[in-house]
């Protein structure tokens, strides 16, 4: 019966009547020709507008200045400064218009195109960079002792600092990069780890190696405590609550004087021992036992290897977790929580494990921080620390292990290196102190990187398993999870 198909008349899709008129009206060219936004005149006009705006705002902010004088405020006028500000705005806007905003071939366009084309090569380069960095990290203290004997202590200390941030970055990467839960209070776990060790050492006389696992467990517990209230939160709310959590921990540490010694901090935190040997001068110390001449550098080398091994463990565990069902569930959670639930994944437990394991590594790093410094106070655990750790993760590329390393070296090492930009004072004259400008330079560098590579330095995702061959997944396909 279905053999004889009724011919369906071909639909006449051409509009007729009022519809046709309306469409022709819409299709008609605009009667007023649009001005060419790329012309020089337009650039100048736009710059003049910006200068006018700067003039209006600057009249109050720059042109007038009030000073406290006997009998009230006095107003002084600073017309020269105002004119300079207006000219700077005009020139700057004009330059941007001519080279970036209102030109047919903006300089930044070439930059972005170059970046897109270079993505696969960058991934291969990252692989070799990873191996190179690992070998370098392995021999780092001896490298500095051999090649910069005068400043080896300073460099090894900096390497320890960078390595601590790498470890923190890797720990936070589990929560933010894999599970996609934005955590602005990660420093809280760092603080819990540090104070756990300090207090355990003070009250129970525990050494570093005994306290380390306990600090990790306590931090993980606090990770769960943070995890429960934020389970149902998404987006901005998640970020705000985690931020508040970080501040709560710091303020409690600051105000619970009887327990934490408040703003005075805890001093005399024991140094780590090497199988019971203390790295101290004199009888029974490490140098004495091995018949070496005592040198304070030994302690720095030892501390470096402790944090190196801790960071390495963090990395290996994370890499392994990614290939386990729990790691895949974290990433699935980042991609789509509802689909996870429809597949029988307990999203509550999965989120809590992410918070707990991330917090545990933060706790380990905190313990190490306490033993390295010998003194801790709430000052060390401000929001700025959370922000720096998060910036390392985001800048490196969410979920990328090697990205965290590069970002830590650039951010922490970079800030320190900017202290050495003495050559700039030769350019700008003797009164110029470049160290004062390092945060500005640093901020600019960060803005540029985020413009150039908005998803971080290493933005591709490596699949955890493959049937035939592993192909990198572009960042545009990978979800970022909650709160980004």
């Amino acid at each position: 019966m279905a053999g004889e198909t009724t011919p369906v008349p071909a639909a006449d899709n051409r509009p007729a009547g009022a519809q046709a008129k309306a469409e022709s009206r819409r299709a008609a060219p605009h009667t007023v020709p649009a001005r060419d936004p790329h012309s020089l005149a337009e650039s100048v006009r736009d710059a003049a507008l910006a200068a006018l705006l700067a003039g209006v705002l600057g009249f109050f902010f720059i042109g007038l200045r009030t000073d406290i004088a006997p009998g009230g405020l006095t107003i002084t006028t600073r017309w020269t400064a105002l004119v300079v500000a207006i000219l700077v705005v005009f020139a700057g806007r004009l330059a941007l218009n001519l080279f970036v905003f209102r030109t047919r071939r903006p300089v930044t366009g070439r930059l972005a195109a170059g970046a897109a084309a270079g993505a696969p090569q960058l991934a291969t380069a990252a692989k070799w960079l990873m191996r190179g960095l690992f070998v370098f990290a392995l021999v780092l203290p001896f490298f500095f002792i051999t090649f910069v004997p005068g400043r080896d202590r300073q460099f090894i200390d900096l390497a320890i600092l960078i390595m601590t941030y790498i470890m923190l970055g890797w720990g936070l990467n589990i929560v933010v990069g894999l599970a996609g839960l934005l955590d602005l209070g990660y420093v809280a776990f760092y603080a819990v780890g540090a104070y756990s060790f300090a207090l355990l050492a003070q009250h129970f006389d525990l050494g570093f190696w005994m306290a380390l696992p306990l600090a990790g467990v306590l931090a993980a517990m606090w990770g769960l405590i943070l995890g429960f209230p934020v389970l149902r939160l998404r987006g901005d709310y998640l970020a705000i609550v985690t931020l508040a959590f970080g501040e709560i921990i710091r303020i409690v540490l600051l105000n619970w004087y009887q327990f934490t010694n408040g703003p005075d901090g805890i001093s005399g935190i024991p140094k780590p021992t090497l199988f019971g040997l203390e790295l101290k001068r004199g009888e029974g110390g490490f140098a004495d036992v091995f018949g070496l001449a005592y040198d304070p550098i030994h302690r720095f080398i030892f501390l470096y290897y402790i944090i190196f091994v801790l960071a390495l463990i963090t990395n290996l565990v994370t890499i392994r977790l990614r290939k386990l069902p729990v790691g895949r569930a974290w990433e699935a959670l980042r991609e789509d929580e509802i689909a996870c639930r429809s597949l029988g994944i307990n999203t509550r437990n999965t989120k809590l494990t992410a918070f707990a394991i991330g917090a545990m590594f933060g706790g380990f790093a905190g313990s190490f921080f306490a033993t390295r410094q010998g003194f801790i106070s709430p000052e060390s655990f401000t929001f700025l620390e959370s922000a720096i750790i998060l910036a390392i993760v985001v800048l490196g590329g969410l979920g990328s292990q090697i990205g965290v390393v590069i970002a830590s070296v650039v951010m922490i090492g970079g800030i320190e290196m900017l202290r050495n930009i003495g050559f700039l004072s030769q350019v700008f004259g003797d009164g110029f102190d470049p160290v004062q400008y390092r945060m500005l330079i640093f901020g600019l560098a960060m803005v540029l990187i985020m413009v150039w590579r908005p998803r971080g330095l290493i933005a591709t995702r490596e699949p955890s398993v493959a049937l035939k061959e592993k192909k990198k997944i572009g960042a545009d396909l990978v979800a970022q999870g909650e709160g980004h």
Partner: protein
Amino acid sequence: MDAAAETGGAVARWDSDPVLTVEHLTMRFGGLTAVGDLSFNVGRGDITALIGPNGAGKTTVFNCVTGFYKPTEGRIAMRHGPGRQQAALDALTNSGARWRRSAEGAVFLLERMPDHEIAHRAKVARTFQNIRLFGGMTVLENLLIAQHNPLMVASGFTVGGIIGLPSYRKAEAEAIDRAAYWLEQVRLTERADDPAADLPYGAQRRLEIARAMCTGPRLLCLDEPAAGLNPRESAELNALLKYIRDEHDTSVLLIEHDMGVVMEISDHVVVLDYGVKISDGDAAFVRSDPRVIAAYLGVEDEEEIDVAEIKQDVDQVARRTPRSDAAGDGR
């Protein structure tokens, strides 16, 4: 409206051996009753279609069955093992527990269980109307995530996996084999290592079904699986669903607007309109039910319909689609 009575006295197969029983299901959102006092059965080994005009409450029923909504009233019972298991079900209802295992099988009260437990324990899998794949993960990873719970046990809840127990490696290899099997069934083996978001639309639909099947479900709930598919893809979907029904111990409950698909593959059709069941029976029965025709064509008063004429129109429309070759058997 008793389906048994209308199909000629004998008790219908889906009433004597149901895998899922929905009884007096009511779902209210504020003052709006999306589903009102709905009862139906899904037969074991059947493909059951839930159809109805837009806004009839089909997806709400789905969300209640799979635990995404908590129903306002009613009982939703899922059974593993044959028969109605009425005694076990009544005992479970009175006990306040969520499920009960017995020699005959097991019964689950889905309205008491959270969504992930329904998928994990009651073995009800679902797909979504707007496809929900893990876009940034590969096709194979999508299928492994579906096997999360058995793999989690095999990895010793992560501890064994971190220290690298061989038993986990074996379990993972088996999971990959199972994923490869389903990739073969949905013809996506070649795309196994590509990100799911890169697949064309039809392939994403098939992948979502394969992912749901990787959870090893007893009941597969599909929310408009044929939406946006071309006729060839629809025909393939029909074959796949029949294969799932015949070769795996899986019953299928589907929401569908494409009547070609519904009429061809459904063993049992339930029709909803305004949250109320208006017809229940096999495809042929539902197709000729004047209430269904009225609901679809929007006629106010049933008395005014010339049933014969409308049937003629419906047949004419159905004939234009190639699928009705098989659908129109016997009439």
